[in-house]
């Protein structure tokens, strides 16, 4: 194999470009924290120019999971695109569904019945809990606290049981429809759901001792990947990353949707805006989400038997039974399934996702083919701010920065 030689041949010239004026510093090494790397939480690639352990330049490269969802929406149509919204931020499938459904409802001015709104709030908050569980568990595992992964995943499996019991599938369950939810929650599942939160809150207190007070965890996160209020706003941060920097802004409080104004919960706000504060914000959000879920479950008891799907036959499929019996329902179903049309115009709906503000900007020209469906991906902005968070710091702190920036490549690359 003559070819071996030229790969490992020693190139004398490379040593020539040493740094003349500073004999102590070595040369910049071009590193590739590539698409297949345990610490990058997905297929992100970071081109790093490292001087010893300090990273001089960091350039994220994305697009390794670009599946062309926005193009797919234009050919699929509004209704069939629901399935794709699950795969956006696949840690919280139901929350993406709700965001997309609310965007469609905003454009169509469609009213959602009260019980459906409560079920949606319950599903969204449970999805937020499941998403934060992975965010905390995996970033702790990356920094060496392996047992945290198994604790958080144990809780996540229990939450999977609830979601599996209600929607029939653990993940990617596409259970939200335009105008409400697919089916009602059975009473015994509600009790089971309520039972989950007692042991969940007890478990969080256990993690607090394990992690929050832990000296190593504190040293590895305090002061790492910090950004000020102005930097966070200028770089388009929203959600836990923005609140970590001290800006008290939560869409559920500022622009309440789906009945959030009736629930009382606090917004967790950090001060220094570093990895440790973002971790504390996420832990507090877990507690607040559990609190909201309990209130939602209580309200579900009062509205038991209420409507869970709107009746507007332009957008909402008739119940299966009616389609067999009456002719108009059959026509309605046929019209909706083949070409559901939204009124002409455009609408934007921003939803408070676990990563930030997940927005759906939809433009319709009145025909069945959607004109445009743009998804605002908070993960893309969380990745864009990585150079700001990591440049000048140690290479091993990049892992804490990625863990605290908390992005999901499915949502970033769409």
């Amino acid at each position: 194999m003559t070819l071996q030689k030229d790969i490992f041949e020693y190139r004398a010239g490379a040593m020539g470009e040493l740094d003349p004026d500073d004999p102590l510093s070595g040369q910049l090494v071009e590193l590739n924290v590539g698409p297949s790397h345990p610490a990058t939480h997905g297929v992100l690639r970071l081109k790093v120019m490292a001087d010893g352990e300090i990273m001089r330049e960091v350039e994220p490269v994305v697009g390794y999971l670009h599946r062309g969802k926005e193009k797919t929406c234009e050919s699929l149509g509004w209704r069939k695109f629901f399935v794709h919204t699950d795969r956006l931020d696949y840690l919280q499938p139901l929350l993406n569904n709700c965001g997309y459904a609310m965007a469609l409802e905003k454009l169509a001015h469609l009213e959602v019945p009260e019980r459906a709104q409560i079920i949606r709030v319950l599903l969204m908050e449970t999805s937020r809990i499941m998403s934060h569980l992975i965010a905390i568990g995996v970033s702790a595992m990356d920094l060496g606290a392996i047992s945290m992964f198994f604790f958080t995943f144990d809780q996540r499996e229990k939450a999977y049981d609830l979601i599996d019991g209600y929607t029939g599938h653990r993940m990617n369950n596409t259970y939200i429809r335009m105008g409400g939810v697919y089916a009602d929650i059975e009473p015994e599942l509600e009790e089971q759901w309520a039972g989950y939160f007692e042991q969940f809150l007890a478990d969080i207190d256990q993690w607090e001792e394990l992690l929050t007070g832990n000296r190593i965890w504190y040293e590895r996160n305090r002061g790492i990947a910090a950004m000020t209020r102005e930097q966070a706003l200028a770089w388009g941060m929203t959600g836990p990353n923005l609140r970590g920097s001290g800006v008290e802004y939560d869409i559920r409080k500022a622009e309440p949707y789906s009945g959030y104004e009736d629930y009382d919960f606090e917004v967790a706000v950090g001060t220094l805006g570093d990895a440790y504060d973002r971790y504390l914000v996420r832990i507090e959000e877990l507690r607040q989400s559990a609190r909201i879920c309990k209130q939602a479950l209580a309200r579900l008891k009062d509205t038991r038997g209420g409507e869970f799907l709107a009746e507007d036959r332009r957008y909402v499929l008739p119940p299966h039974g009616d389609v067999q019996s009456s002719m108009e329902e059959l026509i309605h179903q046929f019209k909706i399934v083949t070409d559901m049309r939204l009124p002409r115009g455009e609408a934007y709906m921003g939803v408070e996702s676990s990563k930030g503000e997940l927005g759906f900007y939809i433009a319709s020209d009145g025909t069945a083919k959607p004109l445009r469906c743009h998804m605002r991906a908070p993960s893309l902005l969380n990745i864009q701010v990585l150079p700001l968070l990591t440049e000048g710091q140690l290479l091993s702190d990049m892992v804490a920065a990625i863990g605290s920036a908390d992005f999901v490549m499915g949502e970033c690359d769409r």
Partner: protein
Amino acid sequence: MSRSLEATRERLAPILAGLDHKEEESRDGMLTLRAPQDGVRAVLAGLHAKAGYELCTIVTAVDHDEAPTPRPQDTGGARFEVVWQLHSITSNDRVRVKCWLAGEEPGEAGFSAPTVMDLWPGAAYFERECFDMFGIGFDGHEGLKRLMMPDAYEYYPLRKEFPHGGIEPDRLYKAWDKQRRQPSGGTA
């Protein structure tokens, strides 16, 4: 509650008084402004500086190619429009600024929009993605290259004439596979 559309309009009226813009009706209660291609930069700068819009939520484009909608008369049959959405946390309201682009083909003179990267650094990736998907240039944007597709990709996927299944999607992979098995290829 977020401020209603009327409240936002009053708040912005003095700021936008001198700037060339027109308000459009919107279905989702968000103030929508339409500005000409050369005047939109002034409107955006004004909103950033005086109206306290700290967050740039969206920079995207819409391709109206064969859409049957009667396009607004004064666009002169333009096909692409660029949409900015800004968000103010202090006064808790949002505004949407739109502008029609003159050109239609990437690289054409009129086929570019002013960058807002200096006002909101967060919009850099949005503009790169807009360029990647539509071919719209953003003058003043340093480092405008593809975001999602590989750099050697020569089509713009979100344009309406681009087929959904793509044109020979594995061409770049085959070229890479052939190139790396040449002896000189390797990892040199």
